[in-house]
């Protein structure tokens, strides 16, 4: 029975005031076993892995395929602790066996094209895959050139480490090789970007390393924005943990960097100021992944507009876009947001294919940032859908003036968060 038949079935039965059953009609049992159909999910990160698992959990009969380029996934969350040396990259690397074990077909290949009309995707390996519903969670790509000389080659001298992996290890190597008394420069991009508190957590974790190993060093954050995520709570933490080791310069005070020179390891602003760094973490401006851009699924700003309840693309039917690539109102581009969106999307798809109404959407976000040993802060929000838009209904940032006990608890619960969310993704 197709989804369409099923919907009609419910409608007809409802209209007839069906309360007495079907008498002697013979219905194949499996017709009532829930949603069926072929769903392909692209991207095995926070959005995609979560979505694939919930599709299978809520729609056990669904044929779910996950297509992911890499054989394992390295999380950006906790990668700042790899840079500081507290964690090894192997501790934040996850395999896909748990997804295969849950009955999801896992294909390791790169998606090279999407054909929404023909309901199929092309793989670099040469084959193509048909779908009834397609979920895309491919994350971000960089807007090379937004800052003069910030080209892809620049990432060797000035690593971004904004996709975890080789870049994370390169930045770690540079930090650990720096002399005591050196200057680290962090250049966050103009909003919007993946993980709004990320650059400031990174400054904290670098400071934690430097405080013990190279205490005469400095960290300069040259920010293209007038303010930053969890600002007051970060600044309070920095002052208490690191004195004046970290200096934050906002856009109008000279933080808005518009050109870089990898050869001389300098960055410059509009005012003509040039800053020299021993280590420079240049985080490029961002946009949705090239996969969705090349498929014509992005808006003029480079992100994907979606129905904020189901996450179906506003451009292509039966194509759903979740995670960093989509525009989800006030939800930050975080792993937690991506997972939250993934579950709403899975619920909409499973319900749709079962011919029933999707449940009212419900979303949340919890982003912890580590400031120092036993010291973390958070931002939390619960969201609802109102008139087609996601709106925040509760939440906020950890208070300034919190007792050390609260910082300690947040630091503990941050670890529990990581274990929970990665288990939810990878099993």
């Amino acid at each position: 029975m197709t989804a369409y038949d099923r919907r009609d079935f419910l409608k007809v039965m409802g209209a007839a005031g069906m309360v007495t059953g079907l008498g002697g009609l013979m219905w194949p049992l499996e017709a009532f076993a829930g949603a069926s159909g072929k769903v392909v999910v692209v991207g095995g990160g926070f959005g995609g892995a979560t979505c694939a698992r919930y599709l299978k959990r809520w729609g056990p009969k669904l044929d779910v395929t996950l297509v992911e380029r890499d054989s394992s996934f390295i999380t950006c969350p906790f990668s700042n602790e790899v840079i500081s040396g507290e964690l090894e990259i192997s501790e934040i690397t996850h395999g896909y066996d748990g997804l295969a074990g849950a009955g999801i077909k896992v294909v390791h290949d790169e998606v090279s094209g999407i054909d929404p009309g023909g309901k199929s995707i092309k793989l670099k390996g040469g084959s193509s895959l048909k779908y009834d519903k397609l979920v895309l969670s491919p994350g971000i790509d960089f807007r090379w050139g937004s800052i003069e000389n910030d080209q892809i080659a620049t990432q060797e001298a000035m690593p971004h480490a904004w996709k975890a992996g080789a870049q994370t290890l390169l930045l770690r190597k540079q930090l650990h090789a720096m002399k005591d008394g050196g200057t680290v420069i962090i250049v966050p991009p103009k909003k919007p970007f993946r993980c709004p508190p990320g650059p400031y957590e990174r400054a904290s974790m670098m400071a934690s390393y430097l405080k013990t190993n190279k205490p005469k060093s400095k960290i300069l954050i040259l920010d293209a924005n007038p303010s930053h995520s969890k600002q007051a709570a970060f600044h309070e933490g920095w002052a208490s943990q690191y004195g004046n080791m970290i200096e934050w310069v906002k856009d109008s005070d000279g933080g808005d960097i518009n050109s870089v020179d990898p050869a001389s390891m300098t960055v410059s602003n509009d005012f003509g100021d040039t800053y020299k760094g021993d280590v420079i973490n240049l985080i490029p401006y961002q946009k949705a992944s090239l996969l969705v851009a090349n498929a014509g699924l992005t808006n003029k700003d480079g992100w994907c507009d979606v129905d904020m309840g189901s996450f179906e693309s506003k451009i292509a039917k039966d194509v759903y876009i979740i995670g960093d690539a989509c525009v989800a109102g006030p939800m930050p581009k975080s792993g937690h947001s991506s997972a939250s969106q993934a579950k709403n999307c899975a619920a909409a798809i499973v319900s749709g294919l079962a011919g029933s109404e999707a449940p009212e959407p419900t979303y949340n976000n919890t982003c912890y940032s580590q400031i120092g040993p036993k010291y973390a802060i958070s931002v939390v929000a619960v969201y609802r859908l109102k008139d087609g838009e996601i709106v925040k209904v509760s939440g906020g940032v950890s208070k300034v003036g919190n007792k050390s006990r609260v910082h300690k608890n947040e630091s503990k619960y941050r670890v529990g968060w990581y274990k929970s969310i990665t288990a939810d993704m990878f099993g």
Partner: protein
Amino acid sequence: MTNFRIITRYAFAAALVGGLGFTPGASAEGVSRVELMASQCNSCHGINGAGAKPNPSIAGENKEDFLDLMQAFASGDEPTSIMDRHAQGYTEAELKMLAEYYSKQ
């Protein structure tokens, strides 16, 4: 959980085939509101709320205690690092649904 759901689905189908009376529920085959709400808790509290140390398990929690604690978080009566900011986002009816749901996990 999954097995249980499959069993209830088949029971539902069997009831139909057998001609037993029922009222078709719109979400009987899809995902219920409480399942979707509860799934949002899993990101910190583990799959089906079963916990991931040091984050507490909320599965199998007594439903009165669950509701009472969530309301105390929301009002500020119970000190917490982050649960006040979550609890305030749900209506009493929703908290009751979640309490009922987790008491059965």
